[in-house]
């Protein structure tokens, strides 16, 4: 258990909680959107939208509940922010890649 002081996680309650709430939700929506396009059946499968909506809280709360493992709130924002941005960019270009208007 001898950890150097810098390795100890800081609580950073407010910044981590905001990262989990906001970026977590943004990332969750993007993951669900990517699955809507790339996952089984593709975007036009009837009734799949219900599934895509239902799993958002699962992604969201998983991310949010694990956000406190980041060493600092700043790291949480940087890592989750980058992941959220990347996921949304991927989601944005997906229709072009798949050739669907």
């Amino acid at each position, binding site marked *: 258990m001898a950890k150097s002081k810098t390795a100890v996680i800081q609580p950073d309650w407010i910044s981590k909680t905001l990262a989990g709430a906001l970026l977590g939700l943004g990332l969750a929506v*993007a993951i669900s959107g990517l699955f809507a396009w790339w996952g089984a059946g593709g975007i036009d499968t009837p009734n799949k*939208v219900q599934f895509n909506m239902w799993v958002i809280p699962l992604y969201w709360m998983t991310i949010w509940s694990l956000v406190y493992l980041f060493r600092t709130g700043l790291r949480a924002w940087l890592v989750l922010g980058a992941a959220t941005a990347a996921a949304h960019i991927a989601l944005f270009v997906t229709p072009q890649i798949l050739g669907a208007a």
Partner: protein
Amino acid sequence: MRADIIKTYKTLHTWTGLIAGMALFICFFAGAMTMFKGTLDRWATPPQSVEWVDDSQWLTLMQQTLATHPEAENGFVLNLRPAENVAAPLVWDANPERSHHDPQEPWGATLNKDGELVTYRYAASPMAQLVDMLHQTAGIPGEGHHLFGVYVMGVISVLYALAIVSGLVVLLPTLLKDFLIVRRGKNLKRFWLDAHNVVGITSLPFHIMIALTVIVFAFHDQLYAALAGTTYKDRPLFERHAPHERSMETVADNLLPPAVLLANLKETAPDFVPREMAYSNPLGERAEVRIGGENHDHMVRGSDRGFVAMDPYTGEVEGTEYLPGQEDPWTEIIITIFSLHFGSFGGDFMRWVYVFMGLAGAFIFYSGNLLWVETRRRKQRRKGGPVEQKRSTRLMASATIGVCWGAVAGVALSMSAGKWLYDTMAADTLYMWAYYVVFLASVAWAFWRGPGRGAVELIAFAGLAWLTVPFTALLAWLVPGIPAWVQTAPGTLAVDGSALVAGLLLLEMSRRTAKRVFHGNTDSVWYAGEPVLDEQPVEIKANAA
């Protein structure tokens, strides 16, 4: 596991749990009751004699009603079977605008022995519906597009999900070592903590599922909007059924007899047992009949029903998305999720399992709050003088017992008041007032009397409150002419029987709590015995409260 992780997640667990705990207690307790919402509704409906009609008369009944009661053109429900809570074979809401939760002006129609139409206004019992509202909102009032309390519970469920994960993280290092051990020793806190952990870990999947589904129930509109904005864009989220193509005019004379529709349906879905047929806009272009029914071999979309839509003029089956056993795979997943929340699979056995899961959940939240209080307890040192407990823990302890036992007592007294004061005022006002008066008075009582005395008295009060339910039934059976009634079908009598058991268990719980409160450790918020003035620590026989 690293100590800093445990510490962080312990803090997270403590505060999310503390904020969410009491509201969740109410929702879980009321949710356990809603597992038998249909039975409760039958139990709460005064006996009525309803002239029932033959299957062959259904169409005549519909046509005659439409001819004489234009309000029924908005839609009506044809009940296929009599039950205690079914006021007529054909019912409609003459004023459907005011609320989307309850019929505001329910009317019923039937045919008398000579085949003449008889219509009447009736009063539907709101009791089961109010228990359901309590389940969905924890009793937090207000109504917008959704009930305001539903949004609050959505937020609470976010905290609840965080509490579940953080609780698991805290427990992980000792999970295998202490697995399913409940230590009943001198250390009462250890006992409560063990019990909290065992119940929590064994029902973990249930709680994860409940937390996530409630977030969806509250925020599905917003989540759909997010998906529409980022992903679906111009694509419609939901398919609309193609407009009906019919060769006939949509007038009452062209309606197909319901028995013919049911025969058609039987070919598509032989195992589906139809219970009621809800006609919407029967004389309009978009005329549709939604048939609700049971199928015990499949999970269903509603709390006890699957659905199928048909064209009332052609008899074509229009949507089989929610017809049990015929869903497409995506809908089947969704139905499974709904079904897991509602416990609507596996019949009455599974409903009882869900009742106990709900009550076990309520125990987790109650014990969680008590553990918070216990952790902050100021211990009396050996040979030290009496200690004063912190104000915050006293208040938290009072709030917990007031809210929890107030809700438990409130529902029971509301149920009994609904029978004794029946017809003295509007039924929904009566039930609401009875619940909130008892609930708020209990909370006030808990703060006034303090946690120790308050707990003993309020648990006993809740026990007596539940005993009024079977007592009312007994009086109604023995003494004719009193306003109260008793429904004597086995299912409805089981309500009275369950209330009797609940009342007796609560009285026993109160007796045991009293032992600790008056004879237990003096250095506790719960102690309410003789003030301790001497320096000798009081010798205690450990007694699991």
